[in-house]
């Protein structure tokens, strides 16, 4: 089973609760703005603590409120592409890309991924000088290079142009299939979801 | 209601001069207000034309400084008090030593230190002069710990951080934590005197009266109680 998620968390006066299991390579998390998609990703990554529940990814138990299990985020093996970018402003693009590579393969796939994302010209640049889409691609590269056991992608392709998108979708498909990384994917684009996702989880409002 | 004169006085006079001001006030006069600080700071405040009435520094030098700038009321400068210099040791570790020409102070200190005021304040200059005229300064100098005033030197001795110290007799008398080893011969240094004068810009009539009170037998008796010598004699 790729994802077994059963979590509940109160945020302000909203109750976020979701329960799903998905055997698919890529599971899409679908739902309107404010439904709680990012919160669910945060809980799986271990950066937002569920009030109660249980999280298993790729057969590994990450969280269980009853058993008292709570694996710290750095040990979960997450490749998290945040909705809000979060590049390290004090490191150049190259150093951003390689930040998590210590855990992974030490960045041996740097050239390949840089090429795929079309960010070869940006390696020596500071994040503050990147355009929106450029920063987004660097964030994707950073997550992929960190040797993750699974990917959490929060609208990773929003803000990318069609041409870039057409080049990136196959990459994600390859990650899904060749590397056999379970992916949880948040998107508002039904077509994109239909193309990529083996299973679609709908979060109501 | 009339206000008392503003007196600028050396910090080392705090206890005695406060008592004198109290006694003066008890005679029905407006109580003098006394500002205690380093004589150097007070002299510079006078130079900056600060509105004060009386000046009582810890030595003649700063009075000369003010006088040279024409800031004193002519004919009001007088010698108020005298003091003596003593060698002290911690009460818990007494030192047996007779102060005399070439006495074994350096040896007695051993690896310990001699706390005294710095050359820049009067007590330090008197102490250095005394040790020099007794012929021991060269041997003792490397062991000297200089404090910014006598009270700090006294603290080093009281706490046993220094093996001995040179302070005024008045300070030693007031501190039960130290024992007087000996009094330096009066001839070993220039006389320790505290002058008093009325400032030229003073308009407070109390200035004349309080000055007279300090120099009167009643005033002098109060200072004698704290160990000072009378400035009228000697």
């Amino acid at each position, binding site marked *: 089973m790729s994802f077994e998620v059963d979590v509940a968390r109160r945020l302000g006066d909203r109750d976020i609760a979701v329960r799903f299991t998905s055997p698919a390579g890529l599971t899409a998390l679908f739902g309107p703005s404010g439904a709680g998609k990012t919160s669910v990703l945060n809980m799986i990554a271990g950066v937002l603590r569920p009030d109660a529940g249980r999280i298993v990814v790729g057969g590994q138990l990450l969280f269980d409120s009853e058993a008292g299990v709570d694996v710290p985020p750095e040990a979960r093996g997450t490749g998290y592409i945040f909705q809000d970018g979060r590049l390290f402003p004090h490191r150049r693009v190259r150093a951003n890309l390689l930040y998590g590579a210590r855990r992974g393969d030490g960045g041996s796939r740097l050239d390949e991924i840089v090429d795929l994302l079309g960010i070869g010209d940006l390696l020596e640049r500071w994040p503050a000088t990147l355009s929106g889409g450029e920063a987004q691609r660097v964030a994707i590269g950073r997550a992929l290079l960190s040797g993750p056991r699974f990917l959490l992608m929060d609208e990773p392709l929003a803000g990318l142009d069609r041409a870039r998108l057409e080049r990136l979708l196959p990459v994600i498909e390859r990650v899904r299939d060749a590397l056999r990384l379970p992916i949880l994917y948040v998107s508002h684009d039904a077509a994109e979801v239909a193309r990529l996702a083996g299973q679609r989880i709908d979060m109501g409002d | 209601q009339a206000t008392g004169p503003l007196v*600028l006085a050396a910090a080392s006079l*705090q206890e005695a001069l406060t008592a004198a001001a109290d006694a003066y006030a008890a005679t029905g006069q407006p109580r003098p*207000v006394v500002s205690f600080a380093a004589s150097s700071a007070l002299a510079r*405040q006078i130079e*900056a*034309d*600060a509105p004060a009435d009386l000046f009582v520094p810890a030595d003649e030098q700063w009075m000369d400084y003010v006088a040279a700038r024409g800031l004193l009321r002519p004919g009001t400068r007088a010698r108020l008090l005298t003091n003596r210099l003593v060698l002290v040791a911690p009460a818990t570790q007494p030192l047996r030593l007779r102060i005399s020409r070439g006495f074994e102070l350096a040896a007695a200190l051993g690896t310990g230190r001699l706390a005294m005021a710095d050359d820049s304040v009067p007590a330090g200059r008197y102490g250095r002069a005394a040790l020099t005229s007794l012929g021991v300064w060269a041997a003792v100098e490397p062991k000297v710990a200089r404090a910014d005033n006598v*009270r700090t030197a006294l603290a080093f001795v009281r706490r046993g951080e220094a093996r001995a110290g040179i302070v005024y007799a008045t*300070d030693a008398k*007031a501190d039960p934590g130290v024992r007087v080893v000996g009094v330096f011969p009066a001839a070993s240094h220039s006389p320790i005197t505290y002058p008093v004068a009325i400032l030229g810009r003073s308009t407070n009539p109390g200035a004349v009266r309080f000055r007279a009170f300090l120099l009167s037998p009643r005033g002098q008796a109060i200072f004698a109680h704290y160990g000072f010598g009378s400035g009228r004699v000697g």
Partner: protein
Amino acid sequence: MTPAEWTAILLSIKVGFWSVAGGLPVAFGLAWLLARRSFPGKLMLDAVIHLPLVLPPVVTGYLLLLAFGKTGPAGRWLNDWFGVSVMFRWTGVALAAAVMALPLMVRAMRLSIEAVDRRLEVAARTLGSSPLRTFAEVTLPLALPGIIAGAVLGFARSIGEFGATITFVSNIPGETQTLPLAIHNALQLPGGDAVVLRLSLISIVLSLGALVASEMLARRSLRGRVAHVL
């Protein structure tokens, strides 16, 4: 507590309050200049602001005396224009305290101004906000942590200031004798330790009060600014 001690305590509070109230706006202006502008002599200005930190306090006090004494340029100016003098007055104490506290206030605020996200100021400008309004409604509130920190540091420094004060405006009970001067007096007296201890405790309580107030202010000002994550 003797009446004289009470007087010193109240004076210290008054001085602390006014030195911060008067010094903060000046410090904020300077911090803003240093954080945001580059101009010839900027490093010089920075150095001058740091002077009271670097020089022994008595030297600062002496310089104040030279400047604000009756014959000093600032003193003459104050006298000619406003007919006032700060010599031997509590206002002089507040002035000395403010000068000594200035570098601390400026540094704290400068740090916070530099940490303000300028893209938010840009957003305010596009929304029709003048540079001044942007400053008042965006930069200033976002720099609030530094302003609060500057105020606390300044207040604490003012409460503790000794050397510059006694050199500048002497040690006059009821007018310029603040807590540290009273403590210093007691320190010179045999058996004054009890008084030293008592007055020191009062100083500590005063600054503790300022600390508590500042923490509350800081918490209030940052209310809602942090999300729940990690």
